[in-house]
Structure formats: structure tokens, C-alpha cells
């Protein structure tokens, strides 16, 4: 009973932290667009939080750049448990067009563990909603 209540609350109130590590900005603006009136992620209780301490889900965009690696890990550690990482956009998945550039390490999953992948270049706001929604749905079943 108590467990179910907690799980329900977690599903209904996912607060996100947006983390950019060398993305081209397209996914970032599309994530912000997902919060604006047309898509309005707040319907699902999603709030965009400024500090990692308040967040539940890290939405990571962009390939992990060399300079950003340590910061990525630090920010990941600052988020209190339970935490999830969603890689958004093709570059966060694999490095995309920047594959083979000397200053990137590949996708986000080369640095921190990733729970869900949302491909797209850039990701459409509705795909972001869909991705977060499927992540939450799958957690519900567990």
C-alpha cells in the first residue's frame, strides 16, 4: 500500500533537469518547446528544475565532450536517488555526425548510465513527451 503510494507519486511528479554537453542547441530548444503551451509537459506534473538536487530525471542532450566529462559525472552524482537519465537526440545516443571528432567521447552512455534513449535529430517535442511517457509507463509495471 505504502509502496504503491510512493510509486504513484514518483510517476506523477517527474522533475527534470536539462543537461547539455555539446549539443547543437536544436534538441535543447525542442525540450524547452515541450514545456510551452502547445505541448505543455506540466500536464504530467513535469517541472523543469534548475538544480540537480531537485531533479528526478536528467534529460541529457549532445555528445559527451572531453571537457564536460567530469562535470557530467558530478552532476549525475548530485541528483538524489532514485534517478533516471534520458538521452535525447541522436548525438546523445551515439555521437551522430560528430562521430570521430577528437573532442567528443561518443554518446552520453559512454560516461554515465542511461535508462532511456530517444532518437531523432532533433527530437520533436512530442517525441520527448512520448519518451518520458514510455519511461514512466515502464516504471509503472515494475
Amino acid at each position: 500500500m505504502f509502496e504503491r503510494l510512493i510509486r504513484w507519486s514518483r510517476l506523477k511528479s517527474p522533475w527534470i533537469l536539462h543537461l547539455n554537453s555539446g549539443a547543437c542547441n536544436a534538441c535543447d530548444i525542442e525540450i524547452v518547446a515541450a514545456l510551452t503551451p502547445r505541448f505543455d509537459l506540466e500536464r504530467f506534473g513535469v517541472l523543469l528544475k534548475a538544480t540537480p538536487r531537485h531533479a528526478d530525471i536528467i534529460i541529457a542532450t549532445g555528445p559527451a565532450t572531453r571537457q564536460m566529462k567530469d562535470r557530467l559525472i558530478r552532476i549525475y552524482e548530485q541528483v538524489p536517488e532514485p534517478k533516471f537519465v534520458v538521452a535525447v537526440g541522436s548525438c546523445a545516443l551515439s555521437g551522430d555526425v560528430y562521430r570521430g571528432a577528437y573532442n567528443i567521447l561518443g554518446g552520453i552512455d559512454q560516461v554515465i548510465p542511461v535508462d532511456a534513449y530517444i532518437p531523432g535529430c532533433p527530437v520533436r517535442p512530442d517525441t520527448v513527451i512520448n519518451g518520458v511517457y514510455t519511461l514512466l509507463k515502464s516504471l509503472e509495471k515494475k
Partner: protein
Amino acid sequence: MKTKFAAFLPEIIRHLFKRPATVRYPFEKLQVPKDFRGTPVFDSAKCIGCMICVRDCPAEAIDIIRVEDVINPDAPDKPKKKFKMLLHNDRCIHCAQCVESCPTDTYIMNTDYEIAVFNRHRLKIEYK
């Protein structure tokens, strides 16, 4: 410039009685335009293995692999070359350059865009 206190007030109050601009997204699918660039789809019957798509793909998303040849019923001595394509959808940038580069119209773009997964291996699509 003259300033008015709470200049936005009339507009904002008007919106209180207006239907929000929000779409009912996850419950009702959105319409995408007909030539939306979704995921590339490969037709192995048309592929001649020229590899132009592999060379032009900006994201190394396409692998064309030669599989065993099939017997051509018209000319049994010349087996028809057969290729399969491995699409790394985690790398694909959906630019549709492969559609444009291909000399034999092997590729078309579908309109799928909701392809979120939990395992990156799932994004590898094999077209035979």
C-alpha cells in the same frame, strides 16, 4: 516610450476564458506533413550495391552488407547480387540524403518518429 502598469493584463485575462493551445498529444497522435522525414526504409530488391549511400551518409548510419546471391531465373549463370542493409537508428540524423543519393530509389522515408527505447541495441534495424 510610454509605459502602462500591467500592460499584459487584458490579454492575459482574455486567455483565462480561452481554450488552451495545448494538443492532447500522447492520447491523440499528431498529424505530420506528408513528406516528413522519419526513418529510412530500405528495399533490398532494388539495391545494386553501389555504396553511394554509405559514402554520403553524414552520420555513418548505413551499413550495406552483401549476402549470398540469389539465382536469377532469367539468367541462371549470372546470379543476382543481393544486399541487406543495417540501419543504425541511434546514429541516423533523418536527413534523407540517402533517398536523394540513391540512383535506384531503394530508399523511402516513412513518418515514424516515436521510437524511444530502453536498450540501444534495439535501435539497430536490419532490412533484408
